[in-house]
């Protein structure tokens, strides 16, 4: 989770995960205040379940000893945040919020209290990026860039055998999206090797001397990193992977390099060039 491991942090792992999980959000504090209120005024109510639930979780999966000696063995470091989903902070805070609103006798007072509470929630929270802030509007019903749809169309128009899957090298901006939209594309660059090439081991560690990874790296170096030191390796990788098409973001230098290396430009969109590999 967030690059931290149980091995590295030991007993402090749970605390670090909680901080990472909630970030600048203060809802756990509101939840804790609610729990104290339940302990004082609501011992016979169903809301005692929040106390029981939290207590069991803190004794088990949030217990640093259990985490260090059991959860570490299961290799759950990266996904530990899913245990924090079990803590009913959000329904708990909402419940205590409604309880607070109901303390007021008149309807207009209740409405005002609800509005104030909503303000407190906003103030104590951290707005979701790309949802509350800068909403990420999809360009179309398929939720992929319009240009990806155009690129797929151009590839299909230029396929020698439309019955077969088109073998395509896409650059990193489209590679993870294309097969969601059009599964008839056979991708040459793997998602995991591209993540590894970017410096992350989250999806796996590759043997950098293996032929498979060398091919992937040769392709990634050119299409994603614009490194043209070993174009022979690039061409060889295209040949060995029987690549038919190369799709890259528009870049004059890259276009020139590809055209010099057996790639013939067959189409373009506003931001992408589409090449056929003829080597």
């Amino acid at each position, binding site marked *: 989770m967030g690059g931290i491991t149980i091995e590295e942090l030991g007993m402090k792992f749970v605390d670090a995960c909680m901080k990472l999980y909630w970030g600048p*959000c203060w809802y756990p504090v509101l939840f804790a205040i609610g729990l104290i209120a339940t302990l004082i005024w609501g011992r016979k109510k*169903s809301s005692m379940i929040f106390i029981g639930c939290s207590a069991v979780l803190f004794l088990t999966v949030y217990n640093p000893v259990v985490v260090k000696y059991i959860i570490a063995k299961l290799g759950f470091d990266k996904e530990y945040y899913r245990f924090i989903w079990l803590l009913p902070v959000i329904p708990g805070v*909402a419940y205590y919020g409604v309880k607070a609103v109901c303390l007021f006798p008149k309807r207009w007072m209740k409405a005002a209290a609800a509005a104030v509470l909503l303000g407190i929630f*906003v103030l104590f929270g951290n707005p*979701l990026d*790309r949802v509350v802030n800068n909403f*990420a509007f999809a360009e179309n*019903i398929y939720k992929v860039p319009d240009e990806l749809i155009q690129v797929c169309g151009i590839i299909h128009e230029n396929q020698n055998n439309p019955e077969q899957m088109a073998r395509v090298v896409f650059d990193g901006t489209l590679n993870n999206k294309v097969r969601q939209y059009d599964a008839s594309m056979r991708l040459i660059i793997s998602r995991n090797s591209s993540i590894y090439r970017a410096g992350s081991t989250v999806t796996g560690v590759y043997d950098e001397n293996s032929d498979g990874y060398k091919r992937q790296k040769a392709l990634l170096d050119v299409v994603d990193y614009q490194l043209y030191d070993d174009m022979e390796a690039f061409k060889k990788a295209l040949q060995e992977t029987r690549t038919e098409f190369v799709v890259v973001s528009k870049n004059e230098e890259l276009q020139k390099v590809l055209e010099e290396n057996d790639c013939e430009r067959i189409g373009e969109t506003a931001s992408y060039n589409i090449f056929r590999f003829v080597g």
Partner: protein
Amino acid sequence: MMKDVCLACIGFILQTMIFLAAGRLVFRVLKLKEDISLQLILGYLAYFAVFEILFTPMTLLWVPLSTAAGIWAVIMAVAVLGAFLCIRRHRHMDGTPGQTVRVKAEAVWKQHSVMLLLLAAVIFLQCLIVIFYEDITVDAAYYVGTVSTSVYTNTLGRFDPFRGGILQNFQARYVLSAYPMNNAVWCRLLGIHPIVQAKIVMSCENVIIANLVIYQIGKRLFGKNRKKADLMVLFVCVLQLFCGTIYTAGTFFFTRSYEGKAILANIVFPVVLMCALWLYEEKEDRRVWAVLFITAVSALGFSGSAIILPAAVLAGMVPVMRMKRKLSGLPYCILCMVPSVLYAGVYFACKLGLLSLAAS
């Protein structure tokens, strides 16, 4: 594009009807009092529990998607017919023609008043968010990619969604959860585009179910006071919108609602809390355990992370048993953990190389 919009609407209505029908059957078997929101929740969970039980073996046996979709279509038709007969029989036994829609609507309005409009607006807003939101996380390359790949290859997950080649072995972390194959089945049956089915139709279904679960929790916490439960749904919506780190259930709810993990966080775990509250107020508790067991099985279908469900069951149910001073439910509690334990057993056997699940 218009065709996809129409198909999405048809798909949404049909799938909601199937969940309601499945819920009706669960209600009939468990002899539960009429409650449309609970019916939809239980129908959804039962649907995915049965789907998981049927589709995981079919996937491992390399059954083609078209055959699997045909079998599933027959099962759904039987469920709808069964639900229809249940309703008719119920009315016949009552000796009354059933309440008119108007009478029912008036009763609902009386219980909720203007809060019902607020509730509808909140859920509608959330649906709009998931409909128009464009997710950029790479995980969709699997969760949606496997749907489009299965539809294209007419298989159940036998091809690599990332690149398109046939797999040698199924990946244990994915293959034991059949949820994406449900999307593939609907795409096959209705011709919906996989992205539209996964990221719009099912995302909206998930949003609605998640809200209904919160509503049910509210109803149980506030002694059946619907207005308070409605307000709780509104508060949860705002809290989810403002708990923004990449890990929170709220982030998954709004931005990755097509993923099984999001369902686990926003439906399955809250359902465990709902069951705990239900157990607290219920005298005949076997029904609650039955619902929890259905939830435990369906959870496996959503995500491999369902192996942590026993912790949720423990945290939710044990305190209630203690509060009620009634430990007779302990065997049922353990039984509800069995599906996750079995799943974990198979998963770790694959991870340790003791078991391999051939895909070709």
